[in-house]
């Protein structure tokens, strides 16, 4: 009744869910996350495209890793909605590669059993597991002994194994949280190539957090640049050089332009004064 009498002072209309453009895989709407009462993400919207690699890049402390951890369900969100092709996280198969492979692998299992672990969780039969692991070994062209324990392998080998583990169940989305940070240059190059190769074979949607701009651009279809906190999307750059990209790509005009543009946006964001300050504190970053 009251609606009829005073239609003007109504509750604000609930914002309807706006689907992303065609080809969107992950839709994030109204994502809010506070840390210690202080907003990190406030009403954050984002569309992550399907079958593309998105690199996340931004200033220190803007919550790059937090973002993918929230999408992957590792950190609870305060408010908002995250959907994968319209499905919830529970209905979606995801893979996650941690920066610190040493604390991500299970040292009590042989490397091969580490890789097979997600398949065991799915209740796959021994034969199916073996088949899938063999497939992964072939596609990664593994040269080291998978019967060894993870701690007996080099860092690069461990990270390779942990990527194989993440890919084993055939995830719809693969999250990578600074997967190269703990590796030497040679291994970084190797694993970068492997990732690109897997991507070209499977078209798995990948979300990559990187603190190295070259790396971020090299693998990406889209470079997602974030602002300082409270974090918003500063810009999304498209980088469309053909794959496979190689070392030569790094010196090509398209790459250099994309990197330069990313750098400019990044620097613009870093130089901006913080948009808000915690009461009674100085902006520390």
């Amino acid at each position, binding site marked *: 009744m009251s609606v009829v009498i005073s239609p003007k002072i109504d509750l604000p209309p609930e914002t309807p869910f706006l689907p992303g453009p065609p080809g969107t895989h992950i839709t994030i709407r109204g994502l809010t996350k506070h840390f210690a009462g202080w907003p990190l993400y406030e009403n954050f919207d984002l569309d992550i495209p399907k079958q593309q690699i998105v690199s996340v890049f931004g200033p220190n402390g803007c919550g790059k890793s937090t973002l993918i951890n929230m999408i*992957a*369900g590792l950190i609870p969100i305060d408010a908002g909605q995250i959907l994968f092709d319209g499905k919830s996280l529970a209905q979606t198969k995801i893979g996650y590669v*941690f920066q610190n492979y040493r604390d*991500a692998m*299970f040292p*009590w299992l042989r490397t091969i059993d580490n890789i097979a*672990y997600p398949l065991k*969780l799915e209740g796959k039969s021994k034969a199916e597991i073996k088949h899938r692991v063999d497939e992964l070994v072939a596609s990664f062209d593994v040269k080291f002994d998978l019967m060894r324990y993870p701690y007996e392998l080099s860092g690069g080998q461990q990270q390779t194994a942990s990527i194989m583990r993440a890919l084993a169940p055939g995830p719809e989305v693969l999250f990578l949280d600074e997967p190269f940070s703990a590796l030497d240059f040679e291994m970084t190059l190797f694993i970068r190539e492997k990732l690109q190769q897997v991507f070209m074979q499977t078209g798995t949607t990948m979300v990559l957090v990187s603190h190295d701009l070259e790396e971020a651009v090299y693998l990406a279809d889209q470079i997602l640049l974030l602002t300082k906190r409270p974090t918003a999307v500063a810009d999304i750059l498209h980088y469309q050089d053909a794959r496979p990209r190689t070392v030569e790509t790094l010196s090509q005009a398209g790459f250099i332009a994309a990197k330069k543009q990313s750098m400019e946006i990044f620097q613009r964001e870093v130089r901006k004064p913080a948009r808000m300050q915690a009461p009674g504190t100085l902006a520390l970053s």
Partner: protein
Amino acid sequence: MNDTVAPSVTVAASKPVATATTTPPTTVVRKRPALGRLLPIVGPIALFVVWDLVVRAGWIKAILLPPPEATLMAMLKGLAGGPLLMDFSVTVVRTLEAFVIAMVLGVPIGVLLGSNERAYRSVEFLIDFFRSTPSSALIPLFLLIFGVSDINKVAIAAFGAFLIVLFNSAYGVLNARKQRVMAAKVMGASRWRIFCDVLLWESLQATFVGLRSAVSMALVIVIVAEMFIGSENGLGHRIIDTQQVLNVREMYAAILSAGALGYVLNVVFIIIEKRIVHWSGR
């Protein structure tokens, strides 16, 4: 892998080491050239030489300190079928009984408490309090409950050892690396699977530290109990008995064998630990 067991054992200094001074310090030894391998026996030899000199020079009366070779012979003879063997085995059996009770109760309860931090916090004070109470101070209490019996000695030793096992297992779970738990979670593991596949394994290292301290603690309490709770056998009983009649040679032999027992138990546990928790410290 199976090189002879010199006590060359590297143990990652784990966080919660149990109460008392019962754990002998673990030695960190690296691969050494052949001559260096003899280093560990330098100390014992020096001790025996000093001991022998002291006795020969008559600085300590022979009635208080027998010569080392006589003591060693008394120990070996005693352990090779003499009366010492009987007391020795009784103590071993009691210690192991107490230890097994402590382990069977302590590990599961500890792991369960550790996996529920609120539950652990609510009993933390009790555990810490009784863990800090010298178990020997509780002997009279246990006497009231169990009377002067064999069960009494095992019960009090089991109690002291149980708290150590409980505490270490719980801490092992509480301090499990969060990232491994997250890795399992992101792969879709249920809470129960995370518990079985990650938390239990993560806690093993600390659990073994607890078990090793617990077996030492059990031995200490069993021997004390044998000394003071009217016992007819056991190493503790033997030590007191021989002391009363000033049979120092037998007394030292019993003391040495108690030391050897404690040492061997510790080494056995380190070997088992290295087998099972093979990733420890890597």
